[in-house]
């Protein structure tokens, strides 16, 4: 892959609908997520089919369904839509815009707001004081407590920052209001069906998706990292090289590569990883052999567990 190829827009393909043939998997993922919500709603409304016989068995069903729905919604927005925000999956702008709106509403986000946070704020200001999408930094540069970030970032801190940013200019204010109205119209659908069901199988999964899946992902991807400078050009992100994690998470583990070349298609990140591997080893990029979930487990723990996160994958240590 040449430097020109890395910066180039997606080549047209035969289908003329999708920007890249592999993006069919993104659509399938989102469609199955919506199907999972529909399935959970139907069983909640027809309890005898799900073996729900009383309040306790209903609570068991809601707990299982809410965790699973939150888990997949976190991936669907935080990873799957994330890729679309960098490289729109359709060749039509109109379809991209509307598919995006129908994509993020099942993760508790207006698509424009998520895209603004991620592309305009996070990617453009990575690890600087202006990157308010990341955890707050202590005076020594380390991140704030893991749990504090998880429970305070979405939606509380985000609402304050988004309000300040998106109401600052009239053009942004108008667009934000329109996107918020479209989001609220879509997001309110489960409440019209059954408000109690919407609380347990819609709002609760969205909180799980954002607090536990997306926020923990943001935390582990940059914990212990430093802002990019000429002296330290490759230590701004951690790389997660677990094969199963990257297979099931659209290669989001190759996070250093993604921040270096955000326009590279997600399916081509493994190839880019091998191309950049030696530079990462030489430059001291933090590489770990597992994925985000185990990293979150380590960083949520005591000092001993956090030290295990700081260990480098043995295949990525410089040869002396």
């Amino acid at each position, binding site marked *: 892959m040449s430097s020109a190829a890395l910066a180039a827009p997606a080549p047209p393909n035969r289908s003329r609908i999708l920007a890249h043939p592999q993006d069919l*998997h993104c659509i*399938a*993922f989102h469609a*199955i*997520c919506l*199907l*999972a919500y529909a*399935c*959970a709603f139907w*069983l909640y409304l027809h309890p005898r*089919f*799900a*073996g*729900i016989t009383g309040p306790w*068995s*209903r609570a*068991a*069903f809601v*707990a*299982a*369904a809410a*965790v*699973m*729905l939150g*888990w*997949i919604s976190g*991936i*669907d927005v935080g990873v799957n839509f994330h890729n679309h925000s960098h490289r729109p999956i359709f060749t039509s702008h109109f379809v991209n815009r509307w598919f995006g709106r129908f994509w993020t509403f099942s993760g508790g986000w207006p698509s424009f707001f998520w895209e603004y946070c991620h592309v305009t704020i996070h990617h453009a200001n990575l690890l600087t004081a202006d990157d308010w999408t990341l955890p707050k930094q202590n005076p020594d540069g380390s991140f704030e407590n893991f749990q504090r970030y998880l429970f305070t970032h979405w939606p509380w801190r985000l609402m304050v920052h988004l309000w300040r940013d998106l109401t600052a200019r009239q053009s942004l204010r108008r667009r934000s209001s329109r996107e918020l109205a479209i989001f609220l119209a879509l997001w309110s659908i489960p409440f019209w069906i059954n408000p109690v069901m919407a609380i347990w199988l819609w709002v609760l999964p969205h909180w799980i998706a954002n607090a536990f899946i997306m926020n923990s992902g943001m935390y582990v991807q940059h914990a212990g990292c430093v802002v990019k400078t000429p002296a330290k050009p490759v230590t701004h992100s951690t790389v997660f090289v*677990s094969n*199963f*994690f990257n*297979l*099931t998470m*659209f290669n989001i583990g190759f996070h250093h590569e993604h921040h270096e070349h955000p326009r590279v298609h997600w399916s081509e990140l493994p190839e880019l990883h091998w191309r950049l591997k030696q530079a990462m080893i030489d430059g001291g990029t933090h590489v770990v052999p*597992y*994925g*985000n*979930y*185990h990293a*979150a*487990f380590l960083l949520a723990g005591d000092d001993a567990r956090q030290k295990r996160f700081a260990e480098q994958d043995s295949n990525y240590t410089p040869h002396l």
Partner: protein
Amino acid sequence: MRRLMHTFLSKTRLAFGRSFFPLFAIAIIAGAALWGPWVSLLVTVLAFGAALRLL
């Protein structure tokens, strides 16, 4: 023929692998109709615990 088979299996693996989590979620949620909500909850707890330990 072997090459065709290899391509087919490779593409199938990718398709199922990338949709693994939502397919698993549907199995857990719809599975409650087969084995009841308590088994679904147990499998969810085990799956989440396994992810935190291994993934």
